[in-house]
């Protein structure tokens, strides 16, 4: 069997000024073909105005087991949300 084309992760930015968003992956021999293939696979219905292609091998991800140490510290810092602070009703624009 010949060499399998490497896997790429595809990110698309839609028309409305939002950030590029991960839409899926595909195989391509190089970055140029990855973008061409992404055009055909992920934007057949005007889904985007910009494409990023990143080699899947270059993505570093947090481990599922680290979920606790990484994200739990935020749980006890409710004061980071504006609703933590009760405001007098008669005071406006806060």
């Amino acid at each position, binding site marked *: 069997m010949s*060499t399998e084309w490497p896997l790429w992760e595809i990110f698309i930015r839609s028309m409305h000024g939002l950030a590029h968003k991960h839409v899926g*992956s595909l195989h391509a*021999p*190089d970055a140029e073909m990855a973008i061409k293939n992404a055009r*055909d696979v992920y934007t057949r219905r005007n889904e985007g105005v910009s494409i990023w292609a990143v080699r899947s091998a270059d993505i570093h991800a947090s481990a*599922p087991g680290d979920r606790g140490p990484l994200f739990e510290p935020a749980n006890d810092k409710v004061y980071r949300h504006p609703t933590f602070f009760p405001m007098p009703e008669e005071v406006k624009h806060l």
Partner: protein
Amino acid sequence: MYAQMVDTGVRKVQDAADMTPDEAAFQARIDADVKIEPKDWMPEAYRRTLVRQIQQHAHSEIVGMLPEGNWIGRAPSLKRKAILMAKVQDEGGHGLYLYSAAETLGVSRDQLVADLHAGKVKYSSIFNYPTLSWADIGAIGWLVDGAAIMNQIPLCRCSFGPYARAMIRICKEESFHQRQGYDILLALCRGTPEQKAMAQDALNRWWWPSLMMFGPPDAESVHSAQSAKWKIKLLSNDELRQRFVDQTVPQADHLGITMPDPLLKWNADTGHYDFGPIDWNEFHQVLKGNGPCNRERLRARVKAWEDGAWVRDAAVAHAEKRAARAAKVAA
């Protein structure tokens, strides 16, 4: 469905007593509707079953391009031809979304393709029937894609994140497929008596195979029960089939054509249509490889893969050459 009779590798549904602590924690996450992601721990049987199911589904999309592709060159107008090309291209896209979802489970694309070509993994029985007339293209969109939508909408909520996300993307596009099919039949049924007879003939040939797409009655399968527990199958075969019949019969009435089933009739007590017995022998024969087009379909896929090998190799050689050149300039 597109994935029929998926083997879970289990002999009986696992209950709490047989589970290891890891398995129990995993089942608890599923019961709480937390999505399972590729890097999360999962039982090996769950992983293997999903690879089989998603792979069957992906192969069905790709093989499904063949019966419809058969009519691209003979579509009755430029408009119909452009629409059919877009539809067939979508099917290719759906196959690709699903292959990448399967690959997140640690299998390679080439392995998935090799499994199909070796006959180790099936695709949906429906694509082993021939497309004999233009009306068949209408019937496929209306019935086959209609049945697919029925099955795929619940799968948007399945427990495996990448599969659920691929299904959401696919479902957004399927509705076009079903409507273009119905539109073809509308045009034929409003046309000459000969054209209407073509539509009726297509319905006669595609109705029963479409009902078989949902797979055998659920009660017979331990796999369905385990898959339901894992939330990778959300509604039973019979439930989906009944919904499909209920929604499709009035659509046929509107076209003025009739299902080839003398026992089909509205049952006011149940609020559903009753329908005649399905020939499961035919279904099993088709799955075994003895349908009208099984050999032709697989031969076409293998030929496309082999004929394209030099293109894939050349693209890799080109990429390597350019990378080497860039490295030299940088040095």
